[in-house]
């Protein structure tokens, strides 16, 4: 399906610009993510990157103003994110943005996630991106991560969120499939919905992760972050939130999990006054464990 969903124009364009299309590796609400090879002169090793293509037609008919505005917002989200992506190791690095509106899309290149099995040793034939979602479903069934690992990942992501929020943006779609690992470092990715704190904008975050008041604020991101942390440390799907595994008391990291549970409770409080007011507060509590 990969080569079918990339049109011939963009395929040629990417080749001319020094990227060799390999295959499709992901699909989002607005476009596709492909694996590309970037071989620089003088370098012996292959350099792989991910390229995201966002297509105008996915938003709606070309004469529809509302879908045109949504397409523009996705582009703005990307530009906003690009200005921040170098600010923190916990935000995915984005480069080489190309606006090809005449051909009905825009695209950009970004760091490639580790491979699920071989990390940075990428074998394009069997490559599978290491997202948090894939990590939680690694061996064909759901599993949890050890409490220590959860804290390490959570601290990194909270720091990434803090930078986004302090710059005035909301991610709007924090969930395991949008968190990837690069060199084993967790990073917030998929920022198509990134925007200022504007309640009028639509978000497509699944209801199970969405804050009850909507996804337009930094506190809503914290709510979704709490749900993600819940999945990480219990291994339960988010629909089971907030139930705990009945045998949790026998787990060796039980006492640490109880501390994380308190943080999840505050991150996922339905009452905004009881929820963390900022990612900084959340980060402080995570650091305190």
């Amino acid at each position, binding site marked *: 399906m990969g080569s079918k969903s990339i049109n011939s124009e963009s395929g040629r364009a990417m080749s001319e610009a020094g990227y060799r299309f390999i295959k499709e590796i992901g699909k989002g609400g607005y476009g596709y993510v492909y694996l590309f090879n970037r071989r620089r002169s003088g370098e012996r090793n292959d350099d792989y990157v991910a390229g995201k293509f966002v297509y105008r037609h996915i938003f709606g008919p070309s004469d529809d103003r509302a879908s045109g505005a949504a397409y523009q917002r996705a582009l703005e989200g990307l530009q906003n994110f690009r200005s921040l992506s170098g600010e923190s190791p916990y935000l995915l690095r984005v480069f080489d943005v190309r606006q090809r509106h005449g051909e009905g899309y825009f695209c950009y290149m970004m760091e490639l996630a580790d491979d699920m099995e071989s990390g940075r040793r990428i074998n394009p034939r069997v490559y599978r991106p290491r997202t948090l979602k894939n990590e939680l479903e690694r061996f064909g069934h759901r599993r949890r991560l050890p409490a220590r690992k959860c804290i390490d990942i959570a601290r990194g992501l909270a720091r990434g969120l803090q930078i986004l929020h302090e710059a005035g943006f909301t991610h709007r779609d924090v969930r395991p499939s949008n968190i990837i690992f690069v060199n084993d470092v967790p990073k917030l990715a998929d920022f198509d919905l990134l925007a200022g704190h504007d309640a009028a904008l639509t978000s497509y975050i699944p209801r199970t992760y969405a804050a009850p008041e909507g996804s337009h604020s930094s506190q809503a991101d914290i709510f979704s972050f709490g749900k993600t942390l819940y999945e990480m440390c219990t291994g339960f799907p988010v629909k089971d939130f*907030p139930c705990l595994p009945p045998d*949790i008391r026998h787990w060796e990291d039980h006492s640490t999990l109880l501390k994380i*549970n308190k943080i999840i409770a505050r991150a996922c409080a*339905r009452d905004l006054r009881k929820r963390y007011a900022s990612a900084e507060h959340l980060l402080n509590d995570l650091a305190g464990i």
Partner: protein
Amino acid sequence: MRRVKPDPADTLRTRPTLLSKVRRGDEDGWSRFYALYSDFIYPAGRAAGLSHEESKDVVQEAMVTVRNYINRFVPDENRGRFRTWLRKIVQSRIADQYRNKKRNPLERVDRHPPSEDSATSTTNRIPDLNEVELDRLIDGKLEQAILTEARSQARKKVRMEDYQAYDLFEVRELSAREVATSLGISPVTVRVRAFRVRRIVEREVRRILKMLEQPNRFG
């Protein structure tokens, strides 16, 4: 009992006219109704000895009957509740499945041969379950579906810590001491938290039943 002010954010509360909507042919109301009831009709079919496919047919056929005849259902305490009406429909559709098997011997599966008791009864008799058992079975499945829905509503209204205690204590049936160890609190706190949630779950159950059985009060 203190009356609870309706909360527009609550899915079920925004649909107190569920049956009224189904009567009007409202697609959204119908989808909600289907989701709620198919969860209990299918297991009732399986428990009555039907196969997966046959039980799915029972769901489809029962829903078609409800859709066609919902306007004839008049909620009346003397004549019967909505649950009783629906139970009769499900019972008949299960009986239909057994009759079809008799008519098509090649498809007949003798996993549950008719009992002596049922062999002498009416054509509507289910081979291996008498009507009382089937009534109990269907009621049980319906109550389970309502309880699941009530818990899912309560989950949105209570503190996370309270629901965790309730789930481990009441749903998973761990002892208060085991839950206390699991959550790092005292057994007394476990009981208090679980009780707090149970009250809300019970209130939700009452509300759902009222909504299902007295649609006119809401419509």
